[in-house]
């Protein structure tokens, strides 16, 4: 499905080739997913619940093993090296880090301690650690004001910021960001995506972003893939996807022909265009 020229492939930081993921030896979740994340870009991975977005991210970060999942086919490459057999620890050292869905801050640690744990894999001096911390506080001023609060008692938005900030402390080149908008108020979602964009342009961090909130994600991303039932059903520049009629209809709830009943249209058109 993906036709990349050799020149473009050289620019790809991360490339996934036709991977298949099986949970518990029986449940086939990804059925041959391929995608690329070019250096310094934001790539959105879109799709409904259960489409396989999180699984794709975990296949890259190798958190899959802890959930009894296995990549049974295909390969994952980062900067040209196969990374499918590396532990999360080795991946973080290479600059690939995942921010998990649902934030997963360490509830009993303070915000600052949470951030400090993010630097676990780097052996750096106290001074450098302080600099990294200041940098994170620069992007997330709100975290600085809450630095001594236990993370479990902060708001959802602050926890999401904490989770991203914690990942930043590892000095990553590529962040796999899973559903950052989950359960957050629209302004906070906007704020977080602004920061993501900022980090992308100023720190040159590449993002692979799994999102259900298609509208917001496509506004900030450079490129998008749409997953359905463990397959990539559509891909393209974010701008193109945003104006695509099908995407508009299925994911943004907009249609040129006005509102239609789900019964009348959706199933038929899905089947015709994407699954057949």
């Amino acid at each position, binding site marked *: 499905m993906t036709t990349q020229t050799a020149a473009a492939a050289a620019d790809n930081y991360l490339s996934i080739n036709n991977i298949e993921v099986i949970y518990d030896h029986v449940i086939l979740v990804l059925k041959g997913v391929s995608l690329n994340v070019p250096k310094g870009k934001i790539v959105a991975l879109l799709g409904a619940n259960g489409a396989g977005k999180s699984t794709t991210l975990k296949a890259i970060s190798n958190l899959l093993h802890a959930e009894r999942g296995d990549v049974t086919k295909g390969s994952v490459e980062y900067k040209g090296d196969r990374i499918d057999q590396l532990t*999360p620890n080795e991946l973080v050292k290479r600059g690939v880090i995942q921010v998990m869905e649902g934030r997963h801050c360490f509830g009993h640690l303070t915000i600052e301690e949470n951030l400090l744990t993010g630097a*676990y894999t780097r052996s750096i001096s106290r001074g450098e650690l302080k600099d990294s911390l200041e940098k994170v506080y620069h992007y997330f001023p709100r975290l600085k004001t809450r630095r001594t609060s236990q993370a479990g008692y902060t708001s959802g938005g602050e926890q999401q910021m904490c989770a991203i900030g914690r990942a930043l402390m590892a000095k990553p080149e590529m962040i796999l960001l899973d559903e950052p908008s989950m359960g957050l108020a629209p302004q906070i979602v906007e704020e977080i995506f602004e920061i993501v964009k900022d980090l992308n342009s100023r720190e040159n961090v590449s993002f692979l972003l799994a999102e259900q909130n298609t509208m917001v994600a496509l506004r900030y991303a450079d490129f998008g893939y749409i997953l359905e039932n463990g397959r990539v059903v559509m891909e393209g520049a974010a701008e193109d996807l945003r104006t695509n009629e099908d995407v508009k209809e299925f994911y943004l709830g907009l249609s040129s022909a006005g509102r239609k009943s789900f019964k009348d249209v959706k199933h038929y058109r899905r089947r015709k265009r994407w699954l057949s």
Partner: protein
Amino acid sequence: MNFFFEVLIGGLLSGVMYALVALGFVMIYKASGVFNFAQGAMVYLAALSVVGCMEKGAPLWLAIILAFLIMTLFGIATEKFVLRKLVNQPPIALFMATIGLAFFIEGLAPMIFGSEPRALELGIVDEPIPWVLDNWNMVISKFDLVAAGVAAVLVATLALFFQYTRIGRALRAVADDHQAALSIGIPLQNIWAIVWGVAGFVALVAGMMWGARNGVQFALTFTALKALPVLILGGFTSVPGAIVGGLIIGASEKLAEIYIPPVMQDLFGGNFGGIEGWFPYVLALLFLLVRPEGLFGEKHIDRV
């Protein structure tokens, strides 16, 4: 009044001995959220290793170092053969594994070092301090005082370690959320090996103190039972909690043993000895009703 203080101080000092055992539980609970049923067995193994090495002709200092190595190896092996297979499993699975581990140690340790009770000579005599006896007419054991000092140093070190070092922070992080810790590159395997190593060290200190006092024998595994009420009072996740809990349990059981029987006898007649044996558990039970997380334990944080 003198007598009251003598009982109180004696109780506090014996409480420190309970706290020493409780500390081992806290270590592992903090880092993996698992109640380590094998802690009592580890105390036994540690004490037995010291005695066993000394019987083979090693001087005390060498025996302690060897026992420390044994406990460290044991910690690493536990991680490699037991815990590694159980990442991301519910805590009850890990708990069951530690029960198995307890039986394993209780069988293996006597096979290697022999099962007969033996004395452990640390060179500290268990006798009253003459100066205190002369001036205040109180019997305070020298040995208890040393044990208290050792415990104090151990607790201070561990508390600082958990609060301020990189590894300590990582340990607390792992305790909160295995998966998140994994996702930011904290290697669970190393962390767990470290934690079991530290718990083994704590077990070694506790084993030597208890072994020197009561002899090295199978009954050492039951010291773990005394640590339970201490943990419930102090909180499973708090190093200082283990100490305060130990002090409260130690003091209250000794005071109860002395002062409750006469009252009961007046009221009901008959003999009311042995209150010491069950009083801590009743206290813990009452405490569970009022404050289940313990005095210093982490409150369960729930967002709604």
